């Protein structure tokens, strides 16, 4: 079964994030970059499906600068067969979800695939829009937050379980389709040593603006980025007895915290 896995290289969750001086982005220096954790579920699922069908090609598609090749190689070391690396500053510097999806769509539209996996969101901007926009541009059905996938033997249909508020929804979808991976879909494997040694020999197709025929223009622009406010110290509610304290608390929740 052939799959494409859209992958974004993002800052590691343990990295200390600093905003750049003009407030439009983060300081890239000193950041540890990793494959997006939700994308990892996508890679793992693609590999498991390939193993189940004992055939097929797993291609990783990623938009990003030079450093993204490390995350791509991690995917290849896990077992993916090939990759497409869209490496053009014209695209990735200010790419919003629409631009990202339009570039990815152009890069993968001629590949053979039964499923395109995405992570449910990238953990830096948490936007979660790329899967849906990608589906719109490629004319494919999209199911998000997938926690279980069963592909029929004929690869024409798949049964997908997705997480919804308070339960699960089980959906039948015709392939090809776009599925975004949620935690719980699988347990991503470690890259094995033989896998690491083979990764460098696997083909990575590098694409630039001229190859793709899209403008990659964003529809939104980041005006300002700031860190969340520093956590305030807790407040001790004063009062002579429980009834007084309760009244004081209710008043604070209403007037100060504006919660009730």
């Amino acid at each position, binding site marked *: 079964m052939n799959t494409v896995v859209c992958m974004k290289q993002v800052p590691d969750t343990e990295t200390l994030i600093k905003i750049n001086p003009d407030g439009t982005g983060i300081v890239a220096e000193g950041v540890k970059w990793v494959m997006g954790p939700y994308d990892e579920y996508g890679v793992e699922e693609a590999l498991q499906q390939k193993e189940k069908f004992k055939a097929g090609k797993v291609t990783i598609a990623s938009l990003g600068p030079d450093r993204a090749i*490390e995350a791509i*190689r*991690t995917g290849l*070391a896990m077992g993916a067969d090939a990759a497409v690396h869209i490496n053009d500053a014209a695209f990735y510097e200010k790419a919003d979800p629409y631009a990202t999806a339009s570039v990815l769509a152009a890069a993968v539209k001629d590949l053979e695939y039964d499923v395109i996996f995405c992570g449910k969101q990238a953990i830096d901007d948490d936007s979660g829009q790329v899967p849906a926009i990608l589906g719109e541009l490629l004319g494919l059905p999209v199911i998000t937050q997938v926690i279980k996938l069963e592909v029929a033997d004929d690869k024409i249909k798949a049964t997908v379980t997705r997480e919804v508020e308070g339960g699960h929804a089980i959906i039948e979808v015709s392939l090809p389709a776009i599925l975004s991976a949620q935690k719980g879909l699988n347990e991503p494997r*470690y*890259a*094995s*040593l*033989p896998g*690491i*040694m083979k*990764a*460098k020999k696997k083909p990575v197709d590098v694409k630039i603006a001229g190859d793709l025929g899209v403008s990659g223009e964003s529809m939104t622009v980041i005006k300002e980025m700031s860190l969340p406010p520093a956590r305030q110290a807790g407040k001790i509610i004063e009062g002579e007895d429980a009834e007084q304290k309760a009244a004081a608390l209710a008043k604070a929740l209403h007037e100060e915290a504006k919660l009730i």
Partner: protein
Amino acid sequence: MDFELTDEQKMLVETAGNFAKNEFAPVAQELDREEKYPMEIWEKASKLGLVGAWLPEEYGGAGVGFLGNALITEQFARVDLGISLIVAATFGCEAIYWGGTEEQKKKYLPLVAQGSAISAGAFTEPDAGTDVAGARTRAVIDGNDYVINGNKMFITNADVCTFMVTLCVTNPEDEKRYKRYSLIIVGSDRKGVTTTKIHGKMGIRASDTAEVSFEDVRVPRENLVGTSEGQGFYQAMQFFDTTRIMVAAQGAGLAQGALDKSIEYVKERKAFGVPIATFQITQQKLAEMAIRIEATRNLVYKSASYLDNGKVDPTLNAITKYYAGETAVFCANYAVELHGGYGYIDEYDVQRFYRDAKILQIYEGTKEAEVLTIARRLLT
């Protein structure tokens, strides 16, 4: 001189590091308290090719060489030294690799590379540690067999291994003292082999260490490592020259782990209203740890690279092992101090690091032995 790791080596570091963080950290305290060998972790690591990674592909290994193995060892030891010794599941096989026949290599090496077997290196005896030539375990030819009698002490993996590469006296009458020994492969399930686990180790308690006794143990003569008797002492020296570098990698890893934890702690811990990280004595200690770790790491990488390029410098290896042992103990010591009272309780990893570190100055060549090796070379 290119001091950069290759892309594959960088990925190796990342994979080994993630594996250790995810798999070792949750169970390290428990395995240390219970002196339990991490069988499941060894199996998982073997399946990924992380055990016996140094072995060439023709023998089932990943072929990353001793430098690759050192990188894995370092990342593992950074999280827990005791559990990191799963990479020593090939212990003893280095001797088969260097000195065994092609048939022996093809028979035994793939077993450890693929996680079908754990091996042990039975050299040390109750009365002979540094004095390797003081070994008295005797192997006598009887028909098509060797019959082995003797005792070994402090043997890593003895309880969990499938076979042991055993140092025996085979030619006691040889006028040259160093030609009296041979290495013989002994299956741990042979009649007459008894292993008794050693309890109460100060550190590396997740590693298996045992006494072994051989009572009229019969093994086929073809289990002699190599083609002729009398090579055992030299094979043992060559073996230790290799494993010594891995021990140094353990030191580099443990020291780095101690530093990592110390940095994390001193940023959080406050005294007199400010993080203790702002105090100069704290900063001095951290800097001194970092200096020694950087030096240790470079020694390890140089020694391992030499080995991979077919060059063995026993003096360099002695310097590397010595320095790594000192660095590990030094850093673990400061780490406990930086944690204050909390560093004294086993709930904090640095307490375990402190207990674990000491062995690096003792096993596989005591620091005293290394010092004498270096001096001897300087004075010839």
